[in-house]
């Protein structure tokens, strides 16, 4: 939707010959700058790919391209660093936390968007104020809370899935994002749903959520990226590789691999690939989700 608006403003048409030439020059400069920017953005990625295919002497010798691609680097990194384990851990963590986040955020967002109750504006302000809290302030308290909860619940929390997922099953950001979409759903739909005898819960599941797949998709994507990127909290609450997610796994591997730069880069590629592929397939959701929430938040 933003795309059309963005492209809407055209360069002014040119009438005379010098003006045409100037416009052409302008275009050339614009493209040069844009291409330089794009090059700066992707060169580090290309370099990563290149180094990840080198052998050790090439990687430390400062070569730009490998003479023959060493595809075995990937299998070597994959086995050395238990990436398969980290991978599965991250996938499991993501599925649990994002699944929870969608359910809980959708419920709360629906209440904020479509229902009336006392204290609504107060609770919403309270919710938004948590966005300002730095993550650092939650480290110590949440660590203690989590280890404490592990002692009263049947399963331990530290170095286990609950500590890595449950705190992320609801977020002010997710509720805010979904509420923005839910609010745009016309009231008439609710009125007619009521005539059909449907309650709030059924209306939410059968009408509101199907209409808001774009927003839910954005929430899922952000949850995925967030879980993949998580570093500080996993360092605090995982003590072994059993539940170590992929970013932390890569960090550990970087230290273990030491001077083996080509393996380091292969590990980096392995870590980045799922997110980058996901991004290329869903980039519209990503970018527009960022743009809409960013502008209004």
């Amino acid at each position, binding site marked *: 939707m933003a795309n059309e608006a*963005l492209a809407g403003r055209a360069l002014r048409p040119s009438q005379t010959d010098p003006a045409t030439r100037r416009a052409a020059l302008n275009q050339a400069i614009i493209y040069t700058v844009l291409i330089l920017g794009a090059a700066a953005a992707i060169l580090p990625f290309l370099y990563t790919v290149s180094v990840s295919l080198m052998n050790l002497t090439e990687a430390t010798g400062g070569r730009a391209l490998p003479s023959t691609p060493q595809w075995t680097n990937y299998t070597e990194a994959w086995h050395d660093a238990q990436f398969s384990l980290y991978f599965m851990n991250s996938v499991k963590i993501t599925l649990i936390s994002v699944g929870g986040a969608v359910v809980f955020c959708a419920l709360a967002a629906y209440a904020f968007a479509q229902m009336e109750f006392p204290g609504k504006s107060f609770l919403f302000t309270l919710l938004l104020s948590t966005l300002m809290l*730095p993550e650092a302030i939650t480290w110590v308290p949440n660590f203690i809370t989590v280890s404490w909860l592990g002692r009263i619940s049947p399963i331990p929390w530290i170095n286990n899935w609950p500590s890595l997922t449950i705190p992320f099953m609801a977020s002010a950001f997710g509720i805010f994002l979904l509420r923005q979409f839910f609010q745009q759903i016309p009231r008439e739909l609710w009125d007619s749903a009521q005539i059909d005898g449907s309650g709030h819960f059924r209306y939410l599941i059968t009408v509101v959520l199907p209409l808001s797949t774009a927003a839910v998709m954005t929430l899922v994507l952000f949850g995925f990226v967030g879980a993949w990127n998580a570093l500080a909290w996993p360092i605090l609450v995982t003590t072994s590789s059993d539940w170590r997610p992929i970013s932390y796994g890569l960090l550990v591997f970087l230290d273990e691999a030491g001077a083996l730069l080509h393996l380091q880069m292969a590990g980096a590629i392995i870590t980045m690939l799922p997110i980058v592929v996901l991004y290329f397939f869903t980039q519209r959701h990503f970018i527009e989700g960022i743009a809409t929430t960013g502008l209004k938040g």
Partner: protein
Amino acid sequence: MREMLLAYSFLAPAFIIIGLFGLFPLAFAAYESTLRGLNKIVGSYDGLGNYVKAVDNLIYIINFWLAVGLVYFAVSMIARAVQEHRQEQTNAMRWALPAALTAAGTALIARFVFILLPEMLLIPSKLRGQNNTQEAFRSLVVETWWLPKVQIALWIGVVFLAAGAVWALLINRQMPKDGRDRIYFMPFFNTGICLISGAALIWFTWTEINAAYAEALEEGVGLELWSQIVTISAGFLLLLLAWRLWESARDRSSNMGVALRLVGAVALMAGAWVLIAELPRVVAAGDEDWWNGLMATVFYVLGTVPIQLGLALILAALLFQKIRGQTLFRVLYFLPYVAPFVGTAAVFRIIFSNRPTAPLNSLLDLFGAEPLLWLSEPAGIIQMITGGKIDLGPILSGPSLALVAIMIYGTWTYVGFDTVIFLAGLGAIPNELYEVADIDGAGGWAQFRHVTLPLLSPTIYFLSLYAVIGTFKAFNHIFVLRQAAALGTTDTASIVIFQAFKRDTRYGYASALAILLLLIIMVITLVNNRIASRRVFYG
């Protein structure tokens, strides 16, 4: 009524999680920061001790002014509500009592939390060796919960809260459906909360100051506390006064304005002089790591935010022309922001490596320059440029080269993000304005300066605030990129807190630092909002 209960049950799961892991930590950290806590043992009560360790006597001043600020907020909120109520002829005062009751109830619930927490935290240390079982732990938790003083505190709070809420609901029932004055509950409630927390803060600080005094007397050393408090406060007050005078001078006639500006300049100089004379001593008495962390953070903000926003604005303005492949460019620019941070940081670790054959060093070699240490270089860049012959001191020598490398990485990741948001902002500017400007004969630059920039100012404001706060929170990439050889010059505030917690296991101290960080972020947000309300043009 049924809808209300249903709404609350919809909210319940999200609020339990956010409350437990997002809001409760604030109270928990505040409590934890008053404990000596070391090595996972709940330490003894230490009052403001952790804060004094971090920022020395400055904490008393901060607390005092925080309390003053709270009272000021309370008064201004009441004043605004009363003014509005006079104009609108509504009956606001009947909300005062229920709101006060609810505020008191909230404060009492907070008190209950602070009574329950220490008891709960003591449980693990009661169980040693053989007795340390799950069942024993659980039964102790239940026992603690049913302690008389805990229960009494809880029920007092609940009774107050319920009384206030029921009263407010009753008033609400009596009102006509379109009653305007139901909005008065919140101002009164906020005022109550501000007043109570301000009073509690002053009382707490006062006891702490007295305790510090008594201790100093016992040790037989003089305490410069009061003189420091007075001079530093006076310094900040003078700066504030200077700012105010300058502001008011702007819309006055020339003579008056000049006079006001002169007085303002004098106040500015006096305030700055007092602060320059007094602050370094306080800073020197505080925690060096913490102050260095703050300095690194400020360097980081100054070095990344303007460049990042400038580059993004240029790219967005260019992309916004009718450009072929606009989507492709956007996708590529955004890539560094989406790619997992640890992965890209790993790449930059190699690019900025100190090996002579690393990419950047080979580039330098191409130009015949000596290889640099990059991420392992603790020396400040200004120090390096000037040849390192004169010792410039920590601030003047600038950020270390290692920090500059991290700043480059930070800019690289965030430019695309800013570009995307700028593009959305540009798309929201109505096209007619440009057509009108075209008719008026405004050229490309004039259009940009007088149409685009003012209309984009909300976006610029949002992005700069987001970037500054983001820097204070930044952790992941700095943690990956930091090298031991950089001697901690790259450690920003969040890293210092993390190290105090994870490496040194000083729980109380880490909490105190985190609270200070929160205060800084709050002040930045407030100041930013003030400036924005004047400078930002909202259509």
